[in-house]
């Protein structure tokens, strides 16, 4: 026997080896091997049921049809293909490219790409995401994927059918194989399109008869290692994948969506965990500080049992943007400044003075002529990592981690200042930079183990980040519990973080309830707690149904206001005294049904 599998995801060499082996095997040995292989794969992939090879042979072919359409013509042709494929016994998924998750590409067997071309060779709007994904650095290898492209265009344009050509070329470059060659249609596309459809289906169905359907590309992906050498002390230098401003034009906020690669790190996280980041100080601030001190940046200083240049020590290892009380106390001892000493005697005055000031202010205002570089470094505390709630689920993004970062900028004491990590990420990170990261697990902010339980997520501003990971996770798990998000920010038009994702989850039915509060879109300020109060009855009902409540974001105002609103709801709807309502909420906390991640 010599097997011929035109669609097999094996190299010629592997096929040859398989042939060689099979030729030596008896029937009962083949039977045993087939059982062994399915067991082997099941072990590799945990408890997920795995189709055996023989099962797959009986399975229909899975064809995913994606269309990019501006006027609807392409969509109509795609629908035609879907219809005919179904009739031929092919299992069909028909999707608008905008509704398709590009990451799913690597799980596809057969793919039909139908697209028009817009204007001067650009993809239609709904194809942009997929187009950019395939042409970007996150595009996966697609060996094993088989596809064909139909492009619609108008030959009176210079870049006739360009988008179809681009898709074809990219898919090929990523390792996919064209089942039949691409067809480019002009404005009178009907006949050519029909021919392409017929040929495509013919080729698919004949391959269905000839062989078992090939396993999806993901089946041949390597698994990430389970253990990692990276932790808080040994951060992983993670490549930056994407740094995207989320705040729309005219927003007074500057919030970024940052995607980071964990590939090869072995780092794993759960929704609710945080990402620790070791930032770098602003080189201009460092230079100004060194200048103010009259030091040489290249001079060597001792740093945790090793030697570093002063400039590196200040850039990477010591905190200079936050002024701590112990530092000022030590400084006062050394400076012997009457003014500073007087200040130190008044606790409230110190607190007030510290506000908005940093090490440079201290150095400039109370110069310390006696100190040398080494002595100065010894006074400073280590540059601590910054923690960001993770905005992604690994079930959805594999070896990536996403965070949502509000850039902190302000003017204080006549100087523009900014948060160390947020401005580093916003302004000073090169496109090919790496970010030292580790995972900071948070056991107290976790989805319920029971996927059927409802959850209420309250996350205004960047507090919404972990709820994006919650939704990704629940979507991947196929969790059936209802999900309710309360989001708030300043303006609907510019500050609705991840708006398109919430809308698409609402459309798919995953996000069952979505309430928003935009504080500055009307005369009176409206915040999430107002929306929560408006929904008192429903919230009480959800609690009766076992809902978990999550609050993430501002600890100073939002979290207490929301807490207060919840107590009122419990008290009013549950006919409880205030004390009883407070106790009720405490019990929810003890039961891990009221979890907060506030900062």
């Amino acid at each position: 026997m010599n097997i011929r599998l035109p669609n097999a995801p094996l190299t010629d060499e592997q096929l040859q080896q398989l042939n060689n082996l099979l030729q030596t095997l008896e029937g009962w040995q083949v039977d045993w091997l087939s059982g062994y292989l399915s067991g082997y794969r099941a072990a590799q992939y945990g408890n997920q049921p795995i189709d055996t090879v023989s099962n797959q042979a009986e399975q229909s072919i899975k064809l995913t049809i994606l269309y990019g359409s501006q006027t609807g013509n392409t969509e109509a042709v795609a629908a035609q293909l879907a219809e005919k494929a179904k009739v031929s016994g092919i299992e069909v998924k028909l999707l608008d490219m905008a509704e398709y998750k590009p990451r799913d590409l690597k799980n596809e067997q057969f793919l039909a790409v139908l697209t028009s071309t817009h204007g001067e060779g650009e993809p239609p709007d709904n194809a942009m995401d997929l187009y950019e994904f395939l042409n970007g650095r996150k595009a996966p290898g697609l060996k094993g994927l088989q596809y064909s492209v139909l492009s619609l265009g108008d030959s009176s344009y210079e870049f006739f059918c360009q988008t179809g050509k681009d898709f074809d070329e990219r898919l090929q470059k990523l390792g996919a194989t064209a089942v039949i060659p691409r067809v480019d249609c002009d404005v009178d596309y009907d006949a050519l399109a029909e021919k392409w459809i017929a040929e495509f289906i013919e080729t698919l169905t004949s391959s269905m008869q000839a062989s078992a359907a090939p396993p999806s590309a993901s089946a041949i992906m390597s698994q990430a290692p389970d253990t990692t050498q990276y932790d808080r002390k040994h951060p992983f230098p993670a490549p930056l994948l994407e740094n995207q401003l989320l705040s729309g034009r005219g927003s007074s906020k500057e919030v970024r969506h940052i995607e980071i690669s964990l590939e090869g790190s072995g780092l794993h996280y759960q929704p609710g965990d945080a990402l620790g980041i070791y930032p770098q100080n602003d080189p201009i601030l460092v230079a100004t500080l060194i200048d103010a001190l009259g030091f040489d940046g290249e001079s060597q200083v001792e740093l945790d049992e090793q030697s570093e240049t002063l400039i590196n020590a200040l850039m990477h290892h010591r905190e200079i943007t936050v002024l701590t009380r112990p530092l000022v106390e030590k400084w006062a001892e050394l400076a012997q400044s009457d003014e500073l000493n007087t200040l130190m005697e008044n606790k409230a005055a110190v607190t007030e003075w510290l506000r908005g000031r940093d090490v440079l202010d201290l150095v400039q205002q109370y110069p310390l002529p006696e100190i040398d570089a080494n002595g100065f470094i010894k006074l400073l505390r280590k540059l601590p990592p910054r923690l960001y709630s993770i905005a992604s689920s690994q079930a959805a993004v594999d070896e990536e981690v996403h965070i949502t970062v509000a850039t902190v900028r302000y003017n204080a004491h006549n100087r523009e200042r900014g948060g160390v990590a947020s401005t580093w990420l916003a302004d000073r990170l090169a496109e090919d930079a790496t970010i030292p990261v580790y995972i900071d697990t948070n056991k107290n902010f976790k989805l319920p183990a029971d996927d059927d339980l409802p959850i209420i997520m309250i996350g205004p501003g960047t507090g919404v980040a972990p709820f994006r990971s919650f939704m990704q996770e629940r979507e991947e798990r196929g969790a059936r519990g209802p999900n309710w998000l309360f989001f708030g920010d300043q303006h609907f038009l510019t500050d609705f973080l991840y708006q398109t994702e919430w809308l698409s989850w609402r459309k798919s039915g995953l996000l069952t309830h979505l309430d928003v509060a935009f504080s500055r879109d009307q005369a009176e300020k409206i915040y999430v707690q107002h929306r929560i109060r408006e929904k008192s009855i429903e919230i009480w009902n959800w609690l009766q149904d076992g809902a978990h409540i999550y609050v993430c974001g501002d600890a100073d105002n939002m979290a207490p206001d929301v807490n207060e609103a919840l107590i009122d709801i419990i008290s009013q709807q549950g006919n409880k005294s205030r004390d009883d309502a407070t106790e009720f909420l405490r019990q929810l906390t003890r039961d891990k049904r009221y979890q907060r991640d506030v900062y």
Partner: protein
Amino acid sequence: MNTKLPEAEQLKLDSRYLRGTIAEGLDDVVTGAISEDDNKLTKFHGSYMQDHRDLRDERRRQKLEPLYSFMVRLRIAGGVVTPQQWLGLDAIADDCSNGTLRITTRQTFQYHEVLKKDLRSLMQQVNAVGLDTKGACGDVNRNVVTNVNPHQSSVHAEVHQISQAISDHLCWQSGAYAEIWLGEQCVYQPGKSEEPFYGERYLPRKFKIGIAIPPENDSDVLANDIALIAIIENDELVGFNVAVGGGMGMTYGETATFPRLATMAGFVPKDQIVKACETIAAIQRDFGDRSIRAHARFKYTIDDHGIDWFNEKFTEYHGEAMTPAKPFELVRNGDRFGWIQGEDGQWHLTLYIYSGRVADTEALQLRTALREIAKVHTGEFRMTCNQNLIIANISPEQKPVIEQLVEHYQLDIGERHPALRLNAMACVALPTCALAMAESERYLPTFLSKLEQIMSDVGLPEELINIRITGCPNGCARPYLGEIALTGKAIGRYNLNLGADFSGQRLNRLYLENVDETTILNTLKPMIEQFAAEREQDEHFGDFLIRVGILGAERTPEMMHKPLVD
């Protein structure tokens, strides 16, 4: 339903007389959009959704939905508003819109960039000044346009009354409008008709009625489904010549679609004209092609069946035949700028408004100026089909007051711009219109200044030429009646159409397909040079092209699709 209707027809049928889920969509605050189906229904209510196309890509990356907003168009028959209404409409622009008003090519106002959350408030304020937005878009009778010739004041007043009567008579009736926008109780009951004339499926497609008072054709009357040409005998309006089946829009590459001028059917006395319009709309309602939307306009009904068939149907529906059309002469379709005194001694001032955009800019405080005029004006405002504005019925005593304001704000009474600007029109296009393939309003000044240079070089700086630009082939600025017209194909590329006449009675034809500005200018320059050298007295550019044989006078649908020069 056993037989499945085409989508647009099914949607109307299922909409419960234009209600759909518009109200629910307005209440959904997490998106600035409404559903696709509701967006088709809101057209009947005078509004549809657009998005800021320049920001589309940026916002997609920002994971923000497109910057959705709504265009709202008013129903103002004949384009006449009082100063009080003007002030009310002006205030709405700040409250609910982007601070501008736009005069459209159908003599009405349009608001842009109205956010969903402000839509209801806008509609209520429009209602408060005694106007509405019913049928400003949608498959119903659209805003009725008329000539604004202010010379014959009594005739104009009568014609305006008739346009208002036609508009009101063919206005849709459903309770949906008052419920959705004005907060009234829902009166819908299954089985109970709310549209005695239209029925549940309304018309197959939009339907336009225009009126001209010869010799002026500023309403481009033959571009309408029903073209009414006022017949005046002994200074008295006696009735109207009726032509049917005009319309502008077409689709590139689909030769079954084409612009068409209305065909003369006959004459109807003035006391029967409202009923005659209903009759004609009823013929389209009953015989228009509802199966193919691109073929649903009345012009195709007329083209398919012929004018004799139409006249038979008219007689059958109306109970009486039209009499033969009376002679008339149309001489121009542009506006006459500046001060004109009417036969009753009242004054009228026609102002040039670039692209109909009533806005304040650093260079020109146009909106402020018109607001100040509205505060003292005792006559009315009339919008023209060329997107200009007439301050009408100014008493001789009041004239100096208006003159002073015009002077103070440096308004253009047709003297401040080169001649070519006065007769040029462009549609909105990018970044607002979803259909636009190329720039139009934003590009018009650039194109004109280059053309003006050529005109000036050949010694014809005062010559008027009708120039029209649109961002797509659908015909909003009536491009197929431009002596020179560009219709957008892609960013920076246009089809060049040439050879319409100066009075809106002959279409142009496709001359060059999908070309850039340089090619267009290089094509036009020698033609204009030849025009300067060889034109006959008072000969217009479009007529000249035909006389010297650059292109023929005959027009067929194919000519709109196949360029004369390849």
